[in-house]
């Protein structure tokens, strides 16, 4: 289980004078579902493109499926299924034509069967002749996923595969991902959804080109050394602003009918909250920080050097 499918270090990418990815190092094990998170513009798509040879890193080294990411990109492409963030199948080809084309590009011997099976699994049998451009957003995503699975890749690179997909399809999608992972396929998936992050075996959090945290969800949370309290009771709606002013409060976030207040300086924040509890009569209980608390904390504590 410890075979590394992705093992890169020191990857850098600049666009003009924008340093988009800085010294990125990633280790992804075989059969693992690896979540890739980070705010917009943090360099996720750029990193994924470098892994599958669509962008040449300015510097760095490493292997992908045991092949050199800098030299063997042609061989890597053959074994990788890459799903782009933006729909990039051909709008003016039908569903079956798109799949057939992709299958031909990968030189599949059992092309017809593979395409038919993919269409059946999608449940698009009745619409196989529909032009891809006329599908709804969610269906486009599902078609794109089917197309990158077609050639049975050993590694899947999925760039926000569930953006705009309905909850049922999202669940189906994640079940499929776990099934693929169980069969030994490695999956790197970028996402902005916390529930999806929690379904990954391990995570990496990248912001403004820097890898800030990686590990299992629990490790990521623990490494932030956050202390979180949940605040419940009447009148918490107008309270967020006041909570932020509290000495020791780094981060305040609403969770439905409760608020989460977190900070790294435990005694200081505890003292502040005790005073608040006396003052207002709200219920203050210490809770385990969630992944979201951890991410928001990470995001707040990195300045954006790119200014975007």
């Amino acid at each position: 289980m410890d075979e590394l499918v992705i093992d890169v270090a020191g990857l850098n990418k600049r666009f003009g004078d924008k340093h988009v990815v800085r010294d990125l190092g990633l280790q992804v094990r075989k059969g693992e579902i690896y979540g890739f998170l980070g705010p917009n513009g943090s360099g996720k798509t750029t990193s994924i493109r470098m892994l599958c040879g669509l962008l040449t890193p300015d510097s760095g080294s490493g292997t992908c499926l045991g092949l050199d990411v800098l030299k063997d990109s042609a061989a890597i492409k053959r074994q990788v299924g890459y799903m782009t963030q933006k729909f990039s199948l051909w709008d003016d080809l039908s569903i079956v034509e798109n799949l057939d084309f992709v299958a031909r590009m990968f030189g599949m011997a059992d092309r017809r069967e593979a395409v038919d099976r993919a269409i059946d699994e999608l449940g698009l049998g009745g619409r196989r002749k529909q032009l891809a451009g006329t599908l709804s957003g969610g269906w486009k995503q599902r078609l794109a996923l089917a197309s990158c699975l077609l050639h049975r890749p050993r590694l899947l690179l999925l760039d926000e595969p569930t953006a705009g997909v309905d909850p049922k399809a999202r669940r189906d999608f994640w079940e499929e991902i776990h099934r693929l992972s169980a069969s030994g396929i490695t999956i790197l998936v970028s996402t902005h959804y916390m529930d999806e992050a929690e379904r990954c075996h391990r995570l990496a959090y990248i912001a403004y080109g820097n890898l800030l945290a990686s590990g299992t969800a629990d490790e990521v949370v623990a490494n932030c050394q956050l202390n979180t309290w949940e605040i419940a009771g009447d009148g918490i709606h107008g309270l967020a602003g006041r909570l932020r002013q509290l000495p020791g409060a780094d981060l305040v976030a609403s969770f439905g009918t409760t608020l989460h207040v977190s900070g790294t300086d435990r005694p200081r924040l505890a003292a502040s909250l005790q005073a608040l509890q006396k003052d207002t009569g709200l219920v203050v209980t210490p809770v385990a920080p969630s992944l979201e608390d951890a991410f928001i904390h990470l995001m707040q504590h990195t300045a954006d050097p790119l200014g975007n």
Partner: protein
Amino acid sequence: MARFSFSRWLGILIKEFIQLRRDRLTFGMIVGIPIIQLMLFGFAINSDPKHLPTAVVMADPGPFSRAWVAAMRNSDYFTIVGSVDERQAAALLDRSEVQFVVTFPPGFNRDLVRGKPPTLLVEADATDPMATGGAISVLNKLGAEVFAPDLPGLRPPAQPLVDLRIHRRYNPEGVTAYNIVPGLMGVILTMTMVLMTGLAMTRERERGTFENLLATPATPLEVMTGKIVPYILIGLIQVTLILLAARWIFDVPMHGNLLLLYGVVLVFICANLTLGITFSSIARNQLQAMQMTFFFFLPSMLLSGFMFPFRGMPEWAQAVGNVLPLTHFLVLVRGILLKGNGIDMLWAQIWPILAFMTGVLTIGLKTFRRTLD
């Protein structure tokens, strides 16, 4: 570079055909452009080229024939390339190496002294009537100027000294359509072929589908040639349309071998497609590809001998023109249609096109970006 895969190549080909079939606008262009241009180019632009290459067949060397040749040279309209025999002269004319052949018959000097106007045979390559018009009218005036000082007493007023016979070869009536229509074939092919393939790759880039294509193992050569082939077919359809119009609307004679013509057309189409696909891989978006196409199209129109007679252009312009495939294609098409030239006479015009194509394809494959950088 990875091995060329025929099945991948076929896949790209099929995809291009399907996309082309669904693209109504392009389809309209394929049929519309030849027809509209054919109709628009009913007019001709005049010009007065000089220094036209001329061969002399000298059957009677003597003072007067020499004076005549000197006068032709002095007129600036003729550049005498040499003295040859009749057979060589005919070949030179056929291969478009000379514009005129002037034949001095036996007894030319003697007849002139006796006051009996000798025949002077001038054969002109009239495939492009504009190119020969000025020179021929100068020839008509030449007689009086050459001989007046030497033979003052012998000249009966108002009677020509020399019986000038002008044979307009290949296009006896000097019909401009004979020249324009084959020329238009080249111009239309240049424009549509370069433009359509020019857009082929940039379109993928603009729509984002290029990323998907790049993520597959397809190689640059497979992608480029796979995208070219459907347009070859389109080019052949256009040529057929133009030939039909040439035959049935403009009555252009067709002396040569049509199969040979199609062969030449194929080479020319490939050269243009290669250029288009190369533009396509250099340009960042469709607009840039379009601009590059027009940047190439203008000199092709102006410097190839389509708009203005090639031999009337300054040397630097001829040098530029000689690089352009259209220049050679025009000579080839006129040669085949109007002169009935065979393959042996065409080679000199075919290899420059092939050289152009090879050069451009090399650049294209070098600049094809396998990444999104």
